[in-house]
């Protein structure tokens, strides 16, 4: 009858079936429609670049783990490296050369993540660290955008051609398609002394379904939004960061555009272009590098948005989401320290409540 049960395991003795792998998979599913649309829009080169980036991210992770004599398979299974590579890939110019994807993927998981000790330990969003590193190191390749050339349409590269474009660069026959994003175009024209009212009619068309130059993830704002809303319904993310980040971009944009439309783009253009949507729903909401409390998340999100606007509008780079996210990532520990949730029986400063009677 008497039986020994070995060492005691502490309560609780029951748990949910949730796990990090499930969360990452759901995020990837939410991101999939926008990505697939991007493949269609930019053709085979985009697909190959995406695959190369993810492969590089995974190899980077595996290599780092093997170096520490840890087995890589169980860690890779949690899907975080794939997601990192994926997020990086959808923020790259779709026709960027292969080595951009390789460098970025390796940088993201090796220095951005594993150097800190792996999942959950990194201080900055690995994908954005890699993107900023790429942007600073290879500004030409990182700002060479192509106009959409939907898959299977006339003039679009075929599968083999697409592979060659990624591996060997864009051949001369495709030269005509290089183009600028709307933010970049507006900025360039402004610096040449042409104000927005005159330059915008010539700018690449802006549309909600994203038939325009840009990275994979930035063009299909509607699909990104749908993915984001789906994640909210699945309770993977809350509304705090996305909404406050979009507000952080929209509010200054609306005010300044009202003041001087010839210098400042309108709200819609800001929200729909660049990585604003992708950033708000998929990047700034990264658990590891964003604050925990709802109040902290509101501040974090608004900061991301406002800094994005500031960098887009006044700084040298046409796009600021990656910088803004990194900057707010660096603020996260401090936000977490000063905006804790109120504890039961204590006031917001942590002092015990006064007894009422």
């Amino acid at each position: 009858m008497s039986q020994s049960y070995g060492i005691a395991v502490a309560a609780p003795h029951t748990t949910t079936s949730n796990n990090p792998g499930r969360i990452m998979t759901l995020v990837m599913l939410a991101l999939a429609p926008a990505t697939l649309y991007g493949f269609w829009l930019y053709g085979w080169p985009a697909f190959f670049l995406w695959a190369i980036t993810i492969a590089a991210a995974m190899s980077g992770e595996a290599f780092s783990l093997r170096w520490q004599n840890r087995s890589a398979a169980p860690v890779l299974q949690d899907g975080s490296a794939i997601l990192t590579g994926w997020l990086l890939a959808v923020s790259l110019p779709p026709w960027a050369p292969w080595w951009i994807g390789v460098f970025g993927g390796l940088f993201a998981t090796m220095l951005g993540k594993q150097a800190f000790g792996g999942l959950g330990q990194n201080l900055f969003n690995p994908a954005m660290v890699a993107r900023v590193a790429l942007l600073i190191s290879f500004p030409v390749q990182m700002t060479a955008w192509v106009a959409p050339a939907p898959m299977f349409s006339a003039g679009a590269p075929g599968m083999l051609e697409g592979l060659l474009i990624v591996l060997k660069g864009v051949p001369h026959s495709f030269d005509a398609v290089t183009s600028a994003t709307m933010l970049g175009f507006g900025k360039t024209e402004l610096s040449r002394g042409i104000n927005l009212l005159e330059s915008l009619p010539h700018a690449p068309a802006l549309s909600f379904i994203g038939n325009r130059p840009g990275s994979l993830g930035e063009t299909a704002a509607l699909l990104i939004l749908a993915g984001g809303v789906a994640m909210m319904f699945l309770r993977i993310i809350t509304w705090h960061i996305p909404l406050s980040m979009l507000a952080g971009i929209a509010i200054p944009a609306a005010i300044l555009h009202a003041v001087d439309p010839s210098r400042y783009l309108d709200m819609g253009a800001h929200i729909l272009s660049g990585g604003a949507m992708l950033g708000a729903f998929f990047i700034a909401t990264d658990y590891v590098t964003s604050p925990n409390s709802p109040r902290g998340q509101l501040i974090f999100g608004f900061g991301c948005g406002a800094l994005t606007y500031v960098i887009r509008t006044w700084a040298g780079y046409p796009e600021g989401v990656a910088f803004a996210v990194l900057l707010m990532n660096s603020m996260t520990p401090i936000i977490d320290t000063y905006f804790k949730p109120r504890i039961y029986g204590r006031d917001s400063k942590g002092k015990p409540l006064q007894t009422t009677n």
Partner: protein
Amino acid sequence: MLMSVGSLAAMGLALGSVLGVASRYLAVEENPIEAELQAMLPGSQCGQCGYVGCAQAAAALAKGEAPVTLCPPGGKATAEALAAKLGVKVDLSKVSDSGPQIAEVTEEICIGCCRCMKVCPTDAIIGAAKQIHNVIREACTGCSSCVDVCPTEALGMMPIPVTLQHWTWPKPASAHN
């Protein structure tokens, strides 16, 4: 030449006098930290730290001559408190905190010589001549002075026995994956 020497001298003089005045107004009475440190030590004057007593150990601590981990009976808790007081960092993993220990008399060998009673700093050993001695667990500080004087090695140190009230959950093993 004269100009440069003169101007530098003048500046030095001016700044010096400003600082002089300031030091008068901002003077702080140095708080003798020694007394505070001594209050944190067990005060059993057991001498395990190598100093004659706790006061001397506190003086050495205040001068920075002794590490905060000097006090074995105080264990981790004392080392931590001292480190916090002195504003130094300490690697507590090195402190051999085999848990606080206490002395125990092996009754078969005790000859009732009373030597241990005399050296015990806290009067934690009871007994009389030719009687088996006994250690009062609550009063023993674990200084092990008695162990050294016992002629028959009847005294030994043992960790304080774990009881239901004192048992704590171990730290979960951190899985590295």
